[in-house]
């Protein structure tokens, strides 16, 4: 499939200089031209697209740049499920657990995916940092349920067998 998300593959937990905010993100924040709390969500979204997650340092930088208390930035980051506080693996796997997918057995498929990647309990990222599994509440492609999204690509008509195979194809 084409139109791969540009950030895919670039995601990393720390950048080369060892900061928890990548140089690219730092530039995004520094170059942001607005101020005020209504820009917290858009700016955090830009950073997360780049880094894959929001670090404490990111929150500090955003707070400083927008002139919003860091407590407010933290409040927003933790309220919205879109924001992640932990780094993610190279591939973000988002199996759907929405209604249409649920009634077609997504629960067992998600279990299978986690089993396949040897993810136990609450752990969502593989030890080699290749995959993060984060279920979502509906990808809007319910007509092809059960569905999962990897990067920006959607895979439909999943079953307990093919889900693992699709993931294997991405293994490097």
């Amino acid at each position, binding site marked *: 499939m084409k139109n791969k998300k540009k950030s895919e593959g670039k995601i990393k937990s720390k950048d080369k200089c060892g900061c928890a905010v990548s140089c690219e993100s730092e530039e995004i924040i520094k170059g942001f031209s607005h101020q005020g709390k209504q820009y917290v969500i858009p700016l955090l979204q830009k950073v997360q697209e780049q880094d894959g997650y929001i670090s404490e340092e990111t929150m500090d930088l955003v707070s400083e740049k927008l002139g919003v208390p860091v407590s407010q930035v933290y409040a927003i980051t933790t309220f919205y499920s879109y924001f992640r506080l932990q780094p993610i693996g190279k591939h973000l796997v988002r199996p759907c657990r929405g*209604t249409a997918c649920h009634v077609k057995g997504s629960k067992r498929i998600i279990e299978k995916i986690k089993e396949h990647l040897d993810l136990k309990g609450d752990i969502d990222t593989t030890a080699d940092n290749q995959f993060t599994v984060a279920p979502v509440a509906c990808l*809007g492609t319910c007509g092809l349920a059960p569905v999962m999204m990897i990067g920006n690509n959607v895979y439909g008509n999943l079953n307990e067998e093919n889900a693992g195979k699709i993931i294997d194809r991405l293994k490097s």
Partner: protein
Amino acid sequence: MIKKGTKIYIGMATCGLAAGGQEVYDSFVSKLGKKESNVQLIPTGCIGVCSREVIVDVEVPGMNRVTYEKVKPEMVEKIISEHLEKDQPVNEWVFGQSGDKKVYPGIEMYQDLPMFKNQVRIVLRNCGSIDPDKIEDYINAGGYKAIKKALKMGQSAVIAEITKAGLRGRGGAGFPTGKKWDIALQQKSGQKYFICNADEGDPGAFMNRSTLEGDPHAVIEGLIIGGYAIGASKGYIYCRAEYPLAVKRLHLALEQAREKGFLGKKILGSDFDFDITVKEGAGAFVCGEETALIASIEGERGMPRPRPPYPAQSGLWGKPTNINNVETLANIPYIINEGGEKFASFGTEKSKGTKVFAITGKIKNTGLVEVPMGITINDMIYKVAGGMATKKKFKAIQVGGPSGGCVTAALGDTKIDYESLVSVGAIMGSGGAVVLDEGNCMVDTARFFLEFTKSESCGKCAPCRLGISQMLSILNRICEGKGKPEDKVALVQIAETVKGASLCGLGQTSPNPVITTLRYFEKEYDEHINEKKCKAGICAELLRFEVDETICKKCGICVKQCPAQAIQGGAKTLAKIDKSKCTKCRKCIEACPFCAIY
């Protein structure tokens, strides 16, 4: 020879792409090679038959437009050599034809297919037939005429037309749109806002996504007309972040509308200034609620606040604000162009027009349908959606998402309109309809929705925060085989409290899935609680891998399905499962048409 001006439309909305639309597109490009100069390849939105994607339409000049279904890259070569070069469609892959040009023999017309015969397309009028990335396509299809007309009509006349149409909000509650606009117009304020609610939080629904991806300009035009009617100068579209393609198309469409002078200062030479900004949500269901949505745009945690004051009085940044759903707005240009009366000729006395449903689950044609209000549930399932997908029987339909209810198959004659759905315990909601068969457990379904609302409750008010958790823990217990007879009473009591005492619609409606499943499927609760049985074979802790001999019809299907050869019987003898061989793969449970294995 390929005729000059031949057009190929390829379904490339999210569903189409997920089914491989890009590969099919690429295959056309490479297989056409040099011949491509005679052909126009057009990526398009979705006509609504997601289960049959990738959809490809071929239109040879002078001939009707032919639709192919489930197209794979391997099929492209034959379509080119037969249909494009010799004008002989590959009938075996064809789904139907449409248009008023020359008809191909042996291919059904769209309007004769049961699926389309029972639909009325107002909102989806352009979806799948125009290129959403080209404003010219929308204009050629009659787009942006309504805004010109509206500017001439004047604000009050526009609102009067919408009122005459009887249009009610498609975002859930069904508030009359004309009345809402009128209240907003009456507010005296130098600054007003108009927001389009594209948060589409119902997990299992995608009407708004498809509309935005397939015909973004229709929503934008509706929003501009709305902004004009109430006297707003600034519009917002609040779109789910999970819909990257819709967001992208919106940005592009807005840019084009600005270039053409439909947005910006002094629109079309009038005194009306209006511009629109897209705001991406961040994954909170409650942000679909209007006051929470406003808080979210302002950069707060998306928590609802008590109303009044209503957003019309004090909304975004304290200014009068009108909020409408995507589908509500997509209806507006049609109403202005065709008149309120024409619109009101569809539907029932109190519910006018059409409703788009994302119909999914255990039916054949999953996808998007637009039906006139007042159609029955059965007609929607059997006539429009092609009936059930498996041999299992239709059990219930879930309408309205987490705020809605499960309507039993026995009430299949219920009409789909705002009042009738409420009378059976469901709501119209935004248009999610999930069809369940005998292989779905109703207790598990209720639990599923509560898991969702529990995680989405913002936690501000106690009845919602604590009540949903309590109900969920009882349901978990029942599904695990630890249910007690008094659990049913407790569920009802908590449900009533949460319904009556919660702050916003999320809490108030969250018990609906529990209340309706208890009302229509009490026996199933009893089986779980007293017999520790889940006859649908869903609740993992209750699975026994046994055959109910009173139900087994000795058809032998399970015997064939079992990969471990653990089942004996079939052809006139009752099935029997050898537990020492059974691997608990569940294939037999899924295959049994009668749900005899649990």
